[in-house]
């Protein structure tokens, strides 16, 4: 038996292909939306994995450095490093801000890390060019997404930093590239005031009799100095010795240091379930809407194609064609349209995903799931047309 669906498609293949192409672009958008969600989750995981930390020690009652402001004294790490199970501990600051590079602005997450080698907590996990931070000041290791090259200058607040190393896939949970600078510079950048404000602050303090006591020399200078230097960090990243359970060490730090401690799995939960939850719901809604729109389009196209063949279907029924053959013809066309749409969509999503500002992760599993969903949608969408075709009276072919 010849394939009626195949012959019909071949007969009007240009129209069929163009329709499939249009549907494919829609499917491509749907796959990209799923890819954006996967990219967000992957960014969060990369952020955790590349931090080099087993535990995040933050201010009590906060959700950690990525989700909420957290402030710790910079010497807190000294008491942590002495605790059982702790191999290394390092201060770190995080600040999302606009930095200037090449005459333009770049939205970036500036990470203040203690200069050191690879594997140190807070340092980028690996570099694709250059070296890690070694100097005490004015060096930066930047993610390539920031558009920097080795030797470039990046301006953070009033200070100029030279790019000494480059990383890849080091982005914040918001998708902003990370710039690693020495901790001291980062602390200064976080709390740096402009010159006018510093002058005003000094004047106000000098006029305040509580701070400017004639019989206490040096008090005013000490207070002014304390106002212009920052002794705070956002978190202490901890690496554990082998054989120690993160939960047990976290419990000890919480108990004895009265600080909040998160393990990797807890931090992953915060980033994925809390930070990107709203975005995920938003994307989920888009996916649902796009699926419904795709289904409606397939249904409409297949229904229109079927209605255009109503006389031929009546003739086919009159000459003895079984309903099964007619239903199969329509179903095959719907599946064919869905298959073309999926292939076009997958290719389109793959081609255009590198141009998205955020990382788009197209997972093979999602592609397989997407293909199954497209097939199911195509089958469901063909029901309307099949119902209409099966209702066609063979007597219509005779007329009268």
């Amino acid at each position, binding site marked *: 038996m010849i394939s009626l669906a195949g012959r019909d498609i071949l007969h009007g293949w240009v129209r069929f292909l163009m329709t499939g192409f249009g549907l494919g672009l829609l499917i491509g958008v749907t796959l990209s939306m799923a890819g954006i969600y996967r990219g967000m989750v992957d960014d969060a995981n990369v952020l955790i994995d590349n931090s080099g930390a087993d535990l995040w020690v933050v201010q009590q009652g906060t959700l950690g450095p990525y989700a909420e402001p957290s402030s710790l004294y910079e010497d807190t790490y000294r008491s942590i490093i002495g605790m059982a199970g702790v191999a290394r501990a390092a201060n770190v600051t995080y600040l999302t801000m606009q930095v200037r590079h090449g005459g333009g602005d770049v939205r970036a997450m500036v990470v203040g890390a203690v200069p050191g080698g690879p594997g140190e907590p807070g340092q980028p996990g690996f570099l694709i060019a250059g070296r890690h931070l070694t100097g005490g000041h004015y060096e930066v290791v930047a993610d390539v997404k920031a558009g920097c090259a080795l030797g470039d200058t990046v301006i953070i607040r009033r200070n100029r930093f030279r790019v000494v190393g480059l990383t890849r896939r080091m982005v914040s949970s918001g998708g902003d590239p990370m710039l690693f600078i020495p901790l001291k510079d980062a602390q200064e950048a976080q709390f740096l005031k402009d010159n006018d404000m510093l002058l005003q602050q000094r004047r106000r303090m000098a006029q305040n009799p509580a701070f400017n006591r004639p019989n206490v020399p040096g008090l005013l200078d000490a207070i002014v100095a304390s106002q212009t230097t920052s002794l705070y960090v956002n978190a202490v990243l901890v690496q554990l010795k082998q054989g120690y359970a993160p939960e047990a060490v976290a419990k000890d730090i919480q108990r004895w240091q009265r600080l909040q401690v998160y393990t990797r799995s807890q931090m992953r939960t915060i980033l994925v379930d809390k930070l990107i939850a709203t975005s995920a719901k938003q994307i989920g809604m888009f996916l649902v809407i796009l699926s419904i729109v795709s289904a409606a389009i397939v249904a409409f196209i297949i229904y229109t194609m079927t209605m255009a063949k109503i006389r031929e279907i009546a003739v086919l029924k009159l000459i*003895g064609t079984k309903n099964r053959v007619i239903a199969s013809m329509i179903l095959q066309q719907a599946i064919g349209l869905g298959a073309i749409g999926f292939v076009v969509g997958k290719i389109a999503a793959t081609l255009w995903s590198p141009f998205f500002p955020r990382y788009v992760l197209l997972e093979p599993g999602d592609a397989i799931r997407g293909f199954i969903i497209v097939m199911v949608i195509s089958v469901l969408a063909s029901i309307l047309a099949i119902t209409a075709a099966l209702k066609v009276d063979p007597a219509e072919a005779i007329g009268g």
Partner: protein
Amino acid sequence: MSGNGIVIEGLQKRYGSGDTLVDALKGVDMQVAPAEVVGLVGPSGSGKSTLLKCLGAVIEPSAGLMRLGEKIIYDGGWKIRDLRALRRDNIGFVFQAPYLIPFLDVVDNVALLPMLAGERNGAARKRAMELLEALDVAHRAKAMPAQLSGGEQQRVAIARALVNHPPVILADEPTAPLDSQRALAVIAILNDMARQYETAIIIVTHDEKIIPTFRRIYHIRDGRTHEEAGEGKSPHELIKIDKA
């Protein structure tokens, strides 16, 4: 299913009920022998199409008897369970317009019926080609219907009606869109095929050009048929006269 052609006795068809009751057929008697071509003529609304639909097992009569060869197909109710198979294997249809399947080429339009009946593609196409050769359109076997002239399309439609060697062909105004030369040519083909395949052919027509070719004509009026003898002129002769 050879032997008696098609026999209809007291066939009735009613539509609606109560105040809307319409007696479309009020007791039609007809008999068409194998290899015979008869005309069925009548004004609009006389019941021609209803009769054709009943004969084609497309709508169910209300009463009467229909016999195809030795087999009773209707006697106060359908006596055949699979009407679809009955149509496919026993009744050929030729319409006013050819209604070829536009996405199949000529040979597959004809071979589709035996394929639907389960015949292998190669054998079905071979049979279709034989018919197309007999109808002088074999050279267009690979053409699509839209590439054919009206006369060629109608010949392909006749080939499709004949391909399963049905005992009966129902033709609904098959010459309406054709000029007199082509109309007579189609009737000549149907006559030749009726003789060659022992097929009973009923042609519904208004076409004055072809009415003289029938030996027997059934007039249908107000749902009843009246038989009369026709002139029985040879369509081949009429073509020559028409050309002259």
